[in-house]
């Protein structure tokens, strides 16, 4: 199968406009004849469900949480980028495009990224109209701040709770459509398989998490808006329930998986405090606007921070990257924190942390100004660690945060299965090998509000409303039986290890060998270890209870079964990509001063993996990335 990205012809700035004109439309009176399934109700899912329902389509929306408002987009802190240039500081659509392409280390599609920058301005308008209370200046106009990887202030924010406010905006728009009867909402319902017939996506199989009932849902198209797969590492900044099951089962039904090894490790998280740790908490990157990152110059220095004089501190980001300083992109900041800790200069009890110090900012601006900007983040830090960051520097360490990889999609956000779409973090598309801060919210909402409403119509108009199968069709029956069989097997093993124990072991393998830095030998060993662990899982996992009840262990068990397969594909992808780019750092490929060394001759492509059956190696397909507008350079933030 040849990958067709369907990038429109014409100059970069005109591609999206031309494409919109060329897309087929569905007559307003016919829209109600179509049914669309949306899985996940975060920024991408809620905005898509609301926008499609407003157009007149019948939407069924699904989430595993008790309410669509709880999707993990809610936890995004720092902000959302948009090329409004309200600050008159030199921003433009082209600059946002350029920063995003460069920040992604030239592993994203030009056309997609340009479109993202183009619609970014509409997102802010839409959210403000919904009543999202963004931060404002005293004159009443919108405020902006700067963020890592950019030298302009283009980030819109709502204190440290931007994701919450944007999600509540999308949730309220969707709630309005639920009341209008155009969205039917299924909370506490998890998608467990995709139904494919005649090469097209036809619907999904779900489990009601309260009754255990396995149900069939048919539709003309299925949109997966299910977020990322960072929880393959067990410890991450994702929510406990965030999982890869929907996209993984779609992969096993024929959707290609793009760049699975591209994982973002976020530099500013609260360090691990012990084995009991269940998740990691992010401290917004916006803190690096005012906080200074440092460690002691001497390895093994155990003095408390206030006893270490200025001349014995190493502000290593400011030293190595004078022009960007503490605002270098996330991958660079994370890797450098790892280096200083590897040198034995880490701080705190675990020695796996660096300081993020606000003393200078408080001296300069006063505590009140710092409190107004970051108050809720400081409170959160104090609640978790018991330390007051106004008085003593924060301790931070990198943690898994976001996955740039995901289902491969074309310019229309369609996967390799016609009728199956992936939006937001669930697709691989816009961030290349590294995502810039405040771009995830932008992408989720761009996909849901402003892209899918156009591109989905083209597909629906092409197939017509009769091209749909009923839930009595054998394809549904078969998929449902497979789901029931898997659940039956998991419940019957009755082994000696819990699901969490397996998940923690998998997470440790992934973090040690497929985390912040990787090498061929480690990856080969990891692949073997994951296979062994997976084999053991199906012999020795313990899942108590039955299917016909709220069973918290069973929920985890189906998710971890998928993580145990996905982990291996990530390792395969990391092993095959013999270069360093963005968040993918292969120790064998670095510049003399330790920066990522890309190989554009051989690896300027998207790796799209095709499932070939259980325990069979996945097949690699390549989508060459063609750069007609930007010149590929080594990223420099010095």
């Amino acid at each position, binding site marked *: 199968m040849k990958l067709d990205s369907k990038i429109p012809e014409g100059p970069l700035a005109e591609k999206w406009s031309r494409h919109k004109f060329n897309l087929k439309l569905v007559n307003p009176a016919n829209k109600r004849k179509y049914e669309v399934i949306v899985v996940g109700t975060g920024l991408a899912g809620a905005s898509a469900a*609301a926008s499609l329902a*407003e157009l007149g389509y019948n939407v069924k929306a699904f989430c595993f*949480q*008790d*309410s669509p*408002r*709880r999707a*993990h987009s809610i*936890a995004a802190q720092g902000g959302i980028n948009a090329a409004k240039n309200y600050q008159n500081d030199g921003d433009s659509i082209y600059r946002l495009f350029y920063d995003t392409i460069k920040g992604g280390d030239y592993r994203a599609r030009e056309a997609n990224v340009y479109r993202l920058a183009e619609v970014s301005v509409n997102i*802010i*308008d*839409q*959210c*403000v*109209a*919904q*009543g999202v*209370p*963004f*931060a*404002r200046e*005293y*004159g*009443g*106009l919108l405020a902006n701040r700067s963020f890592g990887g950019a030298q302009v202030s283009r980030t819109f924010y709502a204190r440290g*709770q931007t994701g*919450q*406010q944007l999600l*509540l905006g999308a949730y*309220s*728009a969707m*709630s309005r459509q*639920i*009341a209008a009867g155009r969205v039917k*909402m299924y*909370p506490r319902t998890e998608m467990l398989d995709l139904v494919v017939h005649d090469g097209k996506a036809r619907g999904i199989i779900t489990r009601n998490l309260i009754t255990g009932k396995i149900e069939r849902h048919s539709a003309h198209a299925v949109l997966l808006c299910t977020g990322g797969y960072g929880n393959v590492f067990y410890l991450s900044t994702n*929510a*406990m*329930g965030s999982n890869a099951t929907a996209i993984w089962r779609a992969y096993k039904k024929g959707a290609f998986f793009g760049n699975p090894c591209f994982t973002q490790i976020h530099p500013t998280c609260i360090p691990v*405090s*012990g084995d*009991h740790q*269940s*998740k990691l908490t992010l401290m917004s990157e916006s803190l690096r606007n005012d906080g200074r990152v440092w460690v002691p110059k001497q390895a093994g220095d155990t003095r408390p921070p206030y006893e270490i004089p200025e001349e014995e501190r190493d502000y290593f980001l400011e030293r190595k990257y004078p022009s960007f300083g503490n605002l270098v992109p996330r991958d660079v900041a994370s890797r450098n924190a790892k280096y200083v800790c590897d040198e034995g200069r880490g701080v705190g009890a675990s020695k796996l942390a660096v300081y993020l110090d606000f003393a200078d900012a408080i001296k300069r601006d006063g505590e009140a100004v710092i409190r107004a900007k970051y108050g809720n983040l400081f409170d*959160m830090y104090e*609640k*978790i660690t*018991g330390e007051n960051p106004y008085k003593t520097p924060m301790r931070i360490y990198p943690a898994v945060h976001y996955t740039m990889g995901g289902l491969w999609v074309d310019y229309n956000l369609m996967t390799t299965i016609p009728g199956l779409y992936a939006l937001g973090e669930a697709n691989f598309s816009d961030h290349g090998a590294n995502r810039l801060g405040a771009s995830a919210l932008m992408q989720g909402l761009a996909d849901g*509000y*402003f892209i899918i409403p156009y591109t989905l119509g083209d597909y629906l108009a092409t197939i017509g409303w009769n091209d749909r199968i009923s839930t009595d069709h054998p394809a549904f029956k078969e998929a449902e039986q497979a789901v029931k069989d898997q659940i039956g097997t998991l419940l019957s093993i009755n082994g*000696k290890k*819990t699901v969490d*124990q397996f998940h923690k072991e998998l997470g440790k393998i992934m973090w040690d060998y497929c985390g912040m830095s990787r090498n061929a030998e480690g990856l080969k060993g990891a692949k073997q270890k994951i296979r062994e662990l997976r084999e053991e899982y199906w012999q020795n996992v*313990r899942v*108590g*209870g039955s299917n016909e*009840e*709220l069973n*918290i*262990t069973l929920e985890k068990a189906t998710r971890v079964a998928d993580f145990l397969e996905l982990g291996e594909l990530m390792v395969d992808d990391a092993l095959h990509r013999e270069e360093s780019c963005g968040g993918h750092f292969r120790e064998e490929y670095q510049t003399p001063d330790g920066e990522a060394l890309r190989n554009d001759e051989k690896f300027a492509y998207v790796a799209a993996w095709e499932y070939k059956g259980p325990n069979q190696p996945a097949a690699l397909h390549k989508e060459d990335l063609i750069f007609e507008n930007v010149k590929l350079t080594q990223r420099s933030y010095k």
Partner: protein
Amino acid sequence: MNLTLKVWRQKNANSKGEFKTYHVKDISPDMSFLEMFDVLNEELLLKGEDPIAFDHDCREGICGMCSMYINGHPHGPGQTTTCQLHMRSFKDGDTIVVEPWRAKAFPVVKDLVVDRSAFDRIIQAGGYISVNTGNAPDANEIPIPKEVADAAFNAATCIGCGACVAACKNASAMLFVAAKVAQFAMLPQGQVERKKRVEQMVAQMDAEGFGACTNTGACAAECPKEISLANIAILNREYLAAKATSEYV
């Protein structure tokens, strides 16, 4: 730390519940309350017992899913979510009583899990501004004074956890409804549907079976996001003004 837990166990919505006693050992003061429950659940699972079902997701205090009623307080001591409550708030040897939210409008689903879909239906009744995607004017077209935007933001930070209902002796949802009504009443974008919104949201709140407000203020005292009681005054004012000139309900 070693602790004794008295936890509400209830198989499903239709069965009768009861307290069961558990002992947990070697708990680190740095653990969150939910991590302590993770430890207990792992033990129960290995012993062949049913783990305790409880709602949780983000574990960073923002999704609003966690909902334990601990020692007579929603989310336990202090104004926090259960996931942000740490064991250093307790003493070695303590006995801790853990119950689900108790309210007619929040029926128990299992153990500590309750059904809060009533909140979603209240939002569906009017907790939005009707603006279809693509309709919006430029974001800076309507300046909003910073003080107003900040006040609206403070109201908008409600996480919909339901602690206010659990804290109230009448199981009233006034603080939750007030936060959304106040946010939109303050903003210029919310003016068009201002009257209709408050009438419909209050009508839905009553239909769900939440109790009346008697101004005891327990809701605001327990709210993990410090939503101010002043919002209830705004809600009352908005409701009265709307009803006095009502064209709807």
